[in-house]
């Protein structure tokens, strides 16, 4: 059963050897040349399970991987019962929201401490389970990196999700993410990342062209 038609992949909810699983299929993109398309899809299919495994080891819950088919760009993984954080964030009280966002921040910090960059930190990629665990999904755009730039970009994305999707709770929401993040990585690292985010936000518009 097709569960989600994302821009990057389709998620099917299936029965697989008696388990409820998610089958993630990266279908070919017609707009890309076939050689380029194949390269990107197989790269992401191969890297995503590695990142998910490392995250689990670092203590940040991710779905269990059952099968990886690089050639077909397919991944079979555990289905996580719960709600997308995106869908419930606005239903919470300020206090609950702060707690949840703080937890998210701690998880992101933990990933970064272990050299894992999620690459697509949106509230749709976090699932709150009935046991109050936050499971991170969709590592397709992630990478292994300890660079400040990568960490800054990761959190810049998270911040922008609050500004574009949760603009009614940017203040307490992202603030709490940030507090949690700083708890996990330490004040000094958090300060460096914070400076990096400011730098990233100032880039990308009128760049310094080669001055002659």
């Amino acid at each position: 059963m097709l569960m989600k038609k994302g821009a990057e992949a389709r998620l099917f909810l299936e029965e697989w050897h008696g388990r409820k699983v998610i089958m993630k299929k990266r279908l070919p993109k017609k707009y890309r040349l076939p050689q380029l398309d194949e390269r990107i899809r197989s790269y992401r299919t191969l890297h995503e399970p590695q990142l998910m495994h490392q995250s689990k080891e670092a203590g940040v819950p991710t779905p269990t991987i059952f099968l990886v088919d690089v050639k077909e760009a397919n991944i079979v993984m555990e289905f996580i019962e719960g709600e997308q954080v995106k869908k419930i964030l606005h239903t919470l009280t300020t206090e609950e929201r702060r707690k949840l966002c703080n937890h998210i921040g701690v998880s992101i910090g933990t990933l970064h401490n272990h050299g894992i960059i999620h690459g697509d930190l949106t509230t749709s990629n976090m699932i709150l389970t009935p046991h109050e665990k936050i499971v991170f999904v969709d590592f397709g755009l992630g990478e292994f990196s300890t660079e400040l730039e990568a960490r800054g970009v990761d959190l810049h994305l998270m911040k922008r999700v609050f500004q574009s999707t949760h603009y009614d709770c940017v203040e307490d929401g992202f603030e709490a993410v940030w507090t949690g993040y700083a708890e996990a990585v330490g004040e000094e690292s958090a300060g460096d990342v914070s400076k990096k985010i400011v730098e990233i936000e100032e880039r990308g518009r009128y760049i310094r062209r080669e001055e002659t």
Partner: protein
Amino acid sequence: MSCCLGIESTADDFSVGILSFDGEVLANVTSTYISESGGIHPREAAQHHAKNVGIVLREAFREAGMRPGDIAVVAFSQGPGMGPCLRTGATAARALASYLDVPLVGVNHLIAHIEIGKLTTGAKDPVTLFVSGGNTLVSAFDAGRYRIFGETLDIAIGNCIDVFAREAGLRPKERMPVAAMVEALASRGRILIPLPYTVKGMDLSFSGLLTAATDLLHEGRHPLEDLCYSLQEGVFSMLTEVTERALAHTEKTEVLLTGGVAANARLQSMLKIIAEEHEARFCVVSKQFAMDNGAMIAWTGILAYQHGLKVPIEKSFIKLKWRVNEVDVPWMD
């Protein structure tokens, strides 16, 4: 008939547009600074603009068949852009508004691109991909503002192509930007050379790809045609990927492509495919209104003025890094 005169001067173009309040373009005249040595030198561009203010204004009035006294509002691009260029346009706008004793309106350059695109293509509420020499932005309207869904994390797409072209020895000619030369060369490319492909969420990075492409160029093992082809395929696939993600996320029913790079046929064909797959209408802004132009400033000035937004001369400072999501757009509600 009430008319607004708009002055655009964020980068290498100095342009004046005159529009009637009901959206008819009466004049749109541009003078472009062409650098001999490569890239835009902001101060030299500003000197070019200052020298051409009178000429462009006179030509715009002639094209519209109007006299300065017929203007009811003066609008100018207040940012984002290059300081010296913005200041030149702002100075001209302030002088004109003060001389004519009419209201002055400061306009966000990026919002002006979206608004003129909507006016000229009939789009109502699109996901916009704005691609130019200075900007790369995926934006859509939500709750009172144009929100930023994706943008470049380092250099702009047009800048990436221009720098590569200049490294390859291409030089712009009148009416023939180097990007058009790259497009022509790419259409004869056959072999796809692997280059970095960097999408981060809905954001993009082009600098790694530019460095890799430039290194390969200097190695001299690949024909320039193949390098242009590989560069274009890579960067346009990245742009299309993030636009598709924004489209899937917002569930809008229109895709608007604008900016100087919008003229590229390959980029257009890629975006058309994703628009069709999401059952959205695909709109490309014509070259005259996709490049930086005064008409877009005049039109956005009209929209803002009609919603009571104007700026006193003493507060009309330019805003070098004015982001679109900082601007209220009451005319969309």
